[in-house]
């Protein structure tokens, strides 16, 4: 069945920024509500494709678009770039979590960005940024993927540089841009290589690329190129150094999106491109290098997070550590590992999104600098109960406490490490479990230092924020619960997609 729901969804996200921007010239409220409503409408149109994803049979690709966006001749081989949007059992849950977290972040911005200038421009860029992320996930064509990949970068760069914490925001945004852009160049070369070696018809469509007959050396080089680009985005050691700065200094709703979903788009892309097309799991030595990097990233991120005195930088390092988990799951090249990673994208998005927004609430309710400094906070649970409860749920989910979502996903990832059958896997699992302990330590220390302890006199007027700021958090926390209790809501999709990629029927 062919319909246009996905196209309409993306089109709304791409065109809405213009309207939002001009509404913002007139009135800030018009800008923020129009941004929220446009993203909501777009999400509804996207959700309409759920029927098709399920009806077509799980694991089948439901795609719409045009095969020839750009087409030029090269003798017998054409160069064809399509514009295809794909919703299948892999992209659907990831795109859905992007929509959920984005909607939460847009609504959260109502309160957080209240006093900022140029709100029209902010919301316009934010919607464009969401368009980039959704486009990356749904892209069915490699060049289109790259276009959206860069579209994800530009608006976020401008938002961070303009609305990030002064005085370093411009420098940090520049660092972010250059890291990601250089990574993107590696991806572009990789895309060129995929086309040159794997596409018999000259099409850039992912579905038309077949690398099975290509020599192992070429596949390895291409894999490394892609992984370079994706590892920058995921902040895998040693390409992580942009992340703590960027996530720490970005405006908090953007930090939540950055940490919650943007960096995970790279994990999705690794599964789509490196695992599925390039089949990099066949090279065992190489996969263990990846696992080594992943484990190191996990432990490194955890230890660095322990040392942080600043809430947002703490969560930023925690994101590095969590990306290590996801990379670990993907690096094992087992169905379990990949399933766990995809699941962890969802649970990490919910938990880390919530935690960043909690940090943002502390900043707005207490003070821009004081509210970030863990040493100066304490005893806030009595003053802001809703925030505290939400933060606790997210923190527990992040440290893998059953029955929350984080437990299920981490557990499946570790299963993957065991299932890979390599003796090194045991050591890797040890380290991974150790880093889970680290996660529990730093999240609980955060809870203790910020929310528990004696009430402080200076915070006696602190209250919970306006509902615009806590309502999205409550929704995210509820989802953490629901997904933890009913993991099948995500796993139905993910296991099926992964089974297809690994050829398990």
């Amino acid at each position, binding site marked *: 069945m062919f319909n246009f729901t996905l196209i309409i969804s993306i089109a709304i996200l791409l065109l809405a920024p213009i309207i939002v921007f001009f509404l913002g010239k007139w009135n800030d409220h018009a800008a923020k509500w129009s941004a929220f409503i446009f993203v909501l409408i777009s999400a509804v149109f996207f959700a309409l494709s759920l029927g098709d994803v399920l009806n077509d049979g799980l694991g089948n690709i439901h795609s719409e678009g045009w095969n020839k*966006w750009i087409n030029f001749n090269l003798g017998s081989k054409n160069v064809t770039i399509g514009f295809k949007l794909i919703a299948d059992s892999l992209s659907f849950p990831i795109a859905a979590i992007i929509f959920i977290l984005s909607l939460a972040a847009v609504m959260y911005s109502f309160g957080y960005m209240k006093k900022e200038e140029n709100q029209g421009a902010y919301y316009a860029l934010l919607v464009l940024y969401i368009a980039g992320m959704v486009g990356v996930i749904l892209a069915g064509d490699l060049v289109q993927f790259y276009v959206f990949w860069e579209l994800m970068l*530009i608006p976020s760069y401008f938002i961070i*540089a303009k609305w990030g914490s002064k005085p370093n925001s*411009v420098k940090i945004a520049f660092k972010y841009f250059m890291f990601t*852009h250089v990574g993107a160049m590696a991806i572009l070369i990789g895309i060129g290589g995929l*086309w040159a070696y794997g596409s018999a018809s000259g099409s850039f469509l992912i579905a038309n690329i077949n690398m099975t007959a290509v020599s192992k050396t070429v596949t390895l080089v291409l894999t490394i190129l892609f992984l370079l680009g994706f590892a920058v985005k995921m902040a895998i050691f040693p390409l992580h150094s942009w992340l703590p700065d960027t996530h720490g200094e970005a405006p908090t709703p953007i930090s939540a999106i950055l940490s919650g979903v943007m960096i995970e788009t790279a994990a999705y892309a690794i599964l789509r491109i490196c695992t599925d097309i390039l089949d990099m799991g066949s090279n065992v030595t190489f996969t263990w290098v990846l696992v080594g990097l992943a484990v190191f990233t996990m432990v490194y991120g955890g230890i660095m997070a322990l040392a942080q005195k600043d809430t947002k930088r703490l969560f930023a390092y925690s994101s590095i550590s969590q990306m290590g988990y996801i990379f670990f799951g993907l690096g094992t090249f087992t169905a379990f590992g990949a399933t766990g990673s995809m699941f962890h994208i969802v649970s990490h998005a919910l938990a880390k999104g919530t935690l960043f927004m909690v940090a943002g609430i502390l900043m707005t309710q207490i003070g821009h600098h004081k509210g970030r400094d863990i040493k100066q906070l304490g005893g806030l649970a009595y003053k802001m109960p809703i925030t505290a409860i939400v933060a606790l749920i997210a923190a527990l989910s992040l440290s893998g406490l059953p029955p929350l979502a984080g437990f299920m996903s981490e557990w499946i990832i570790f299963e993957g490490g065991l299932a890979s059958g390599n003796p090194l896997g045991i050591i890797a699992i040890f380290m991974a479990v150790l880093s889970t302990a680290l996660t529990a330590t730093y999240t609980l220390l955060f809870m203790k230092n910020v929310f528990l302890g004696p009430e402080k006199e200076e915070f006696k007027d602190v209250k919970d924020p306006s509902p615009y700021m806590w309502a999205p958090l409550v929704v995210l926390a509820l989802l953490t619960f629901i997904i933890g209790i009913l993991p099948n809501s995500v796993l139905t999709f993910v296991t099926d997609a992964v089974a297809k990629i690994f050829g398990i029927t």
Partner: protein
Amino acid sequence: MNVFWLLPIIIAVAGALLIGLLGRFARRESQGWNLTYAIIANICFLAMLGLIIAFGNALPVKSEDLILVLGTKTYEKGIYTIFRLDQLTWWFILIFTILGSVTAIYSIRYMDHDDRLDRYYLLLLLLVAGMIGVVMAGDLLTLFIFWEGMSIASYILVSFRKDEPEPVEAGVKYLFMSAFGSVMLLFGMSLLYGVTGTLNIAEIGTTLFTKLATNGISGVHVIIIISLIIGFGVKAAIVPLHTWLPDAHPAAPSGISAMLSGVVIMTGMFAMINTLTTFFRPSLLLLPNLCAVGYVLLWVSILTMVIGNLMALRQTDIKRLLAFSTVLNVGFILFGLSMTLTNINSDVVTLGVQGSYFHVLTHALGKGLAFLCAGAILYRFHDRELDKLEGIGHKMPVTTFAFTIALLSLAGVPPLPGFWSKLNIVVAAVSSGNVQYYVGVALFLLSSVTSVVYYLIVLQRLWFKPAGEHLKDVKETPIEIIIPLMVIVILMIVIGVIPNTFQNLAKQAATALGL
């Protein structure tokens, strides 16, 4: 001879003459007549643009319609003027005229502090007429005449503000270097005439082919190739002949900077590749040594990119920075075009040439828009130092927005047009199957990434620094200047969303090069 096809040139020259005459009569009260000159020039440009778009349906024009025989003999070698109008030349003329029209609209308001505007518009029209002539010329004499007409107009336009030292100095430097180039060109052309006995470019190609096939390559051919590369290369600003460019382009009035950087240098590139390809490409299969020319051009293009980038990185003057970025883009374009003189599969060559021709358009729009925006900033605040322009985005958001689009497109950020043209060149290089191009394409992408550094530094200084005290009286650009800027912005977004249409035009142009 059907004069109809020459109407764009005729209109431009006629408009120039009319403005010249009016200016002569109205010399004493010149200020009041400025608008009249501007209107005449704009009407001419619009008429040219309309005609050229209309020509698009009638291509290629039959060659007998474009031969002008001088004297009584119907045919004698050397004594006739021949033009050429096919998809290739049409593509370039279209780009020239689009940017020329926008510049003409832009100049109405931008030049309102200057006097002697009769000369300005006269020279602008002659500049465009010269460029169209260079591209349309089918024989070397015609080419050289229009070439010099274009060059002279551009010398004077560079030093149009003759009361300031910088433009005059830059204009003189430009004049000397360009004159040297012209001499080399004339030298090469006379050798060509001596070797082949004709000035018709197509005939030279066939004659040279037979001669090379029988006698092989000799010293005179090498000298011809070198003098053509140097002669056209000065205008095209390939390293190491680029040194005039960073002086001349910033010194000119901004509309002229846009024309010079966007399109005038491309005439050099066009003429160089067109002549070299016509003369020597047919012999490539017989004489593999000739491929060295292509590879030399490849490495020259890489050198051009590297030098352009390194120099641009250390500029503090916004227009000088853009000028060095032009050097970089000359390298990009030459990279794709250098394939014509190598023994790579001709399908790939066509793709590479197509990419370069498409990049000519995207660079003309991007760099043209960037210079026009820089000019719009200068119009309100007369300083080109980036340090002093910091934070001007708060005062002139619309102009800075247009500037952002221009620089992002030049940086090759999708989905703006600059990305598609670079992608096209990269795809061609990747499928070339040649190691030198593989290395080259890596350096190409590296240069592209490096260029992002300084574009981004400019942008963040304009947008994110707080506006200084000295900027407090700066207002947004007047609407007459915003309109041409927005025309290009919209055009760029359209090209970015539907690149295929424009890529097909570039493809037809590449095919018409006759590889």
